């Protein structure tokens, strides 16, 4: 699949990236204006990774996501209004306002959830992969995580389980060069994080995370391997977050120049250039196609805000329900005492 030459694909990729961008710009703005509370982690600048990766997935495939998870959620097909409603702490949000940005999940599209715990989703992804395997299914699980997560024990244990059991999991590392303020240069003693993969006996590659095509290619490869029983792989996508880690970030640990140089490598602008013929390939989209994608993204986000704003606030009267799921049927063959 060539994203830059197949018009439908190109549009989907571009619209997805723009949707993530516009969604997060809106969120950033609402936080700044005090219309949202809590904290937030924006993936602006990193849109090509979830976009490319999720285009390599099919219906029924799973993902596990992170604290910086809006992009994964959108790329996997979530409803923007339910996402926005969640951030606005509405009863109509994906988590009925209980979870917020760090816990958005969309089980219907296979998104098993953002996670407030760095690397928390990694063993969970292995477990989902195990479930698929035990059921004899052909689904694949993509586990997203950041560079910082790779040094957590949970990451190590989760990856090893997937490796020894040949589970259908693709580990996608969004290496944006920092775990909060800790640069990969200080946190790792290796040049690429993909070097870690070898120690688990799984393939590892490092790719340009600002190009959805490259991400797609690497993840599609890995998905194919996983789906055909070849076990897990590790894909390191090099990218960058433009915004601070979260609200409280003063960006003391990186230079303005560095940020600027990465802004110049804007994944969306580069992709637009590529699809409209800036590259060597035949242009897949016209300028007006591009304009259409942009408008679609903008309108969707606006619509989501409108819908979400009109929804009822999360209801404190039902605060204590949903701590426990109601008992279902006993496992077949069971009789209650």
């Amino acid at each position: 699949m060539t994203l830059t030459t197949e018009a439908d694909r190109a549009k989907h990729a571009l619209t997805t990236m723009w949707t993530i961008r516009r969604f997060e710009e809106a969120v950033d703005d609402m936080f700044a204006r005090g219309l949202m509370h809590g904290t937030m982690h924006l993936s602006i600048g990193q849109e090509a990774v979830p976009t490319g990766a999720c285009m390599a997935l099919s219906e029924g495939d799973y993902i596990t996501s992170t604290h910086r998870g809006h992009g994964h959620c959108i790329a996997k097909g979530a409803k923007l209004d339910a996402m926005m409603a969640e951030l606005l702490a509405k009863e109509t949000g994906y988590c009925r306002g209980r979870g917020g940005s760090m816990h958005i999940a969309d089980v219907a599209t296979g998104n098993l959830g953002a996670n407030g715990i760095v690397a928390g989703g990694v063993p969970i992804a292995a477990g989902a992969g195990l479930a698929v395997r035990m059921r004899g299914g052909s689904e694949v699980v993509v586990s997203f995580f950041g560079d910082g997560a790779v040094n957590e024990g949970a990451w190590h244990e989760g990856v090893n389980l997937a490796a020894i059991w040949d589970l259908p999991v693709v580990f996608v590392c969004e290496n944006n060069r920092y775990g909060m303020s800790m640069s990969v240069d200080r946190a790792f003693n290796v040049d690429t994080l993909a070097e870690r993969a070898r120690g688990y006996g799984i393939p590892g590659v490092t790719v340009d995370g600002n190009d959805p095509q490259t991400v797609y290619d690497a993840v599609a490869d890995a998905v194919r391997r996983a789906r055909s029983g070849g076990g897990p792989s590790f894909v390191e996508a090099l990218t960058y977050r433009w915004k601070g880690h979260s609200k409280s970030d003063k960006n003391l640990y990186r230079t303005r120049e560095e940020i600027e140089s990465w802004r110049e490598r804007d994944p969306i602008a580069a992709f637009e250039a590529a699809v409209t013929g800036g590259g060597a390939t035949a242009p897949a989209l016209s300028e007006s196609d591009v304009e259409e994608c942009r408008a679609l993204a903008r309108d969707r986000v606006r619509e989501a805000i409108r819908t979400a704003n009109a929804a009822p606030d999360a209801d404190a009267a039902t605060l204590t329900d949903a701590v426990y799921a109601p008992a279902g049927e006993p496992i077949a063959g069971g009789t209650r005492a």
Partner: protein
Amino acid sequence: MTTTSDTRSAVGPAVSAVAEPRTLTYSEAVREAMAQAMAADDRVFLLGEDVGTYGGAFGVSGDLVHRFGTERVRDTPISELGIVGAAVGAGLAGMRPIVEIQFSDFTAQAMDQIANQAAKIHFMLGGAATVPMVLRAPGGSGTGAAAQHSQSLEAWFAHVPGLQVVMPSTAADAKGLLLSAIDDPNPVIVLEHKLLYKQSGPVPEEPVRVRLGETAVRRTGTDVTIVATGVMVSRALEAAERLAADGVSASVLDPRTLRPLDDQTIVDSVAATGRALLVQEAPKTGGFMSEIAARIVESPAFGRLQAPVSRLCGLDVPIPYAPQLEQAAVPQVDDIVTKAAELVRRW
């Protein structure tokens, strides 16, 4: 997902004489529960360190691997956090995992997946997903395994909303509570006790559930209510016999499920006897018996108390290696007798 409806064909030891009720050891009862659940439902599987060929560190899984294969009785590397995480993920994706942690002390390794993930996911997602995971782990002292292999950590789990916590004290409960735990769509921590594994008791052959959240009244008396958990239940019963010989009539209550706690049964009993002795193996400070004490004094039983609510607990020390020190570190039958008698005589 197919399920077989006949739960008995593939599982369970041979039936003993019809007249006397069949007895099993506590660990056989646990194994039978797992076998019946696995036979009944393909989604159920067991994973943990050495649960396969080895048969489990305490022999609990025994021959299950031969009956259900290495996929469903799954040996894992030594990585408790990963294992529990895998169970969380498998549960989210529709399976019914049972995790065995070799010693409950090693739940410390997995605490993030237990308390931050499994316990909270259903709530954090506004009810959109469930984590039907059962985590079994043996706790307790008495085997000379020292401080890192002997803890009683139920208070940690009982403090976490979203978890359920079960402490079976008999073979029948070991089976019946585990079956209920497997049925349950929410995570359940089942804390077995090492010293109980070899104790025998009558156990129904059928997969009969013991409901979560029901305190068992093991003995009824009029002078004092002894509430005990885990291995302390049998010690309390032995103490009650001796107290009876001494003219002190004790009720013995076994909460079995700490979360959700059936406090009503406890409160009713204390209201009737006017005295409560709360016995646990875990160190006293911050132990679960504090919670029971607090609930009693917040309840109407407060007005019926004829003596202070009294706890008899493990000392506030790590469990020592030396046998005589290890014994001294946790309540023994003598201690229960003395304390209960004192409570009745002094007040």
